[in-house]
């Protein structure tokens, strides 16, 4: 049962990811990206990572993509004229990054999918992976966790400063 479900989700993931890149309408592309995130969440669920699957939907599909959609919908992208130079730079970057990705995946394939260090101890049955993730996150990976939260705080403060700055000298903020 699980292998068939995995095939289904994986096929959907690849198909929707391709549609994100290939579709002309940016809003439709964004919606396909939402579908791609949802199929990825399905794959997480099949790997018994329920917590990760749900957080994937909440954070990516529910929060980040809504903001993406906002930007795409309300900034009119139809009249975005691009010069030849921009297109050339973008194409070049695309080819370069694509080649890099192909190279890395090729190396990985020849090495037989060794994915680096794997957590040695699996969470106890019945404990649930939310508890397991919490324990590891607040002990072994506490420092990266705190660094990430400081990064987010900096981004938030930056966004507020930019939003306040538009008011000019008479506004309450600088």
């Amino acid at each position, binding site marked *: *049962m699980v292998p068939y479900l995995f095939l289904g989700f994986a096929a959907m993931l690849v198909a929707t990811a391709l549609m994100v890149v290939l579709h002309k*309408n940016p*809003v*439709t592309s964004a*919606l396909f990206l*939402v579908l791609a995130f949802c199929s990825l969440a399905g794959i997480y669920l099949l790997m018994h990572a*329920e*917590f990760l699957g*749900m*957080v994937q*939907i*909440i954070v990516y*599909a*529910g*929060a980040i993509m*809504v903001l993406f*959609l*906002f930007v795409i*919908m*309300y900034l009119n992208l139809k009249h975005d004229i691009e010069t030849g130079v921009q297109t050339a730079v973008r194409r070049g970057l695309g080819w370069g990054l694509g080649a890099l990705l192909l190279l890395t995946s090729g190396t990985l394939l020849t090495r037989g999918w060794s994915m680096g260090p794997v957590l040695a101890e699996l969470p106890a049955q019945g404990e*649930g*992976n*939310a508890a397991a993730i919490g324990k590891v996150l607040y002990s072994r990976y506490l420092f990266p966790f705190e660094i990430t939260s400081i990064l987010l705080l900096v981004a938030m403060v930056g966004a507020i400063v930019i939003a306040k700055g538009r008011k000019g000298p008479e506004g309450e903020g600088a």
Partner: protein
Amino acid sequence: MAELWGNAVFQVAFWAILKVGIILFVMLTVVSYLILAERKVCGHIQARTGPNRVGPFGLLQPLADVGKLLFKEEFIPADANKVIFHIAPMLAVFPAIVTLSIIPFGPPPMFQVTDIQVGVLLFLAMSSLGVYAITLGGWASNNKYALLGGLRSSAQMISYELAMGLSIIPVILEASSMSLNHIVDAQAGPLQLYGLTVPFLPNWMLFKPHLMLPFVIFTITMFAETNRAPFDLPEAEGELVAGFHIEYSSMKWALFFLGEYMNMLVISSIAITLYLGGWRGFGPEKFGIIWYTLKLAAFIFFFMWVRWTYPRLRYDQLMNLGWKILLPAAVVNVLIAGIVVYWRAHA
């Protein structure tokens, strides 16, 4: 056939599909009568009787309504994005139906489709997907009023989702589980308050002092998440005509309403499960579904009562309430609940 029946996977799938079918059928019927109930409640609050012509006490009114909607002409605006215009109403119903699969309607495993360890997160995930229906519906209609309605709705739902998620965390801490079944089990028996047992009161989360404010916050955000008055700014017929569903007609319009009422049922069920002891009540466990139905009916009546009693908030009031009052209050409550739970475990 017997061989197939012996297969464990087949049995699980069979019972799950049967339960899903029953729940869907019951919920769709309930929704059609909720609309009648809404009109009746509205009528009596405004000192009139409400619909009473079709059948005894107007009980056949839902049939008449659905018949009218089915035969209405379906209209699609010329410059609408056709595919998204069709998908948006379906998206309004889908998250609510998915969430129904984890709600314990009575003692498990009989009255629940499935119990997952991250039940609360599934609910939050689905309610965060609910934004798409209204945003896309408003955008695809290619109408200024619809677009404004969709824009307002997404801003509103994103703002209130945060406070809602934070108001659930104290409950998760108290029950030390995200499974809805465990949360219901943690509310069994008489009230336990900081080591004391209070007789005559059930051990519901609502009665614990450090969980009272989260309940109030959850109840307020509940109205915002379902886009019901006093938070029905996406529709705001006075200024936006009908908001995001202005261009929708016939069954597509009905799907938006189905979604709204389904969402009401689901979110009330979650509130009952998290704070009001779920299906637990006095008497034997098999009466669970009766207690559940009573609590749900009370909650739905509360929804309608508020809708026909309070005026709509202004947009800046809505944002102030969400970001400057509910969110900080919820954050403080997470801290308080954390301290209480830690103190109890280590004292």
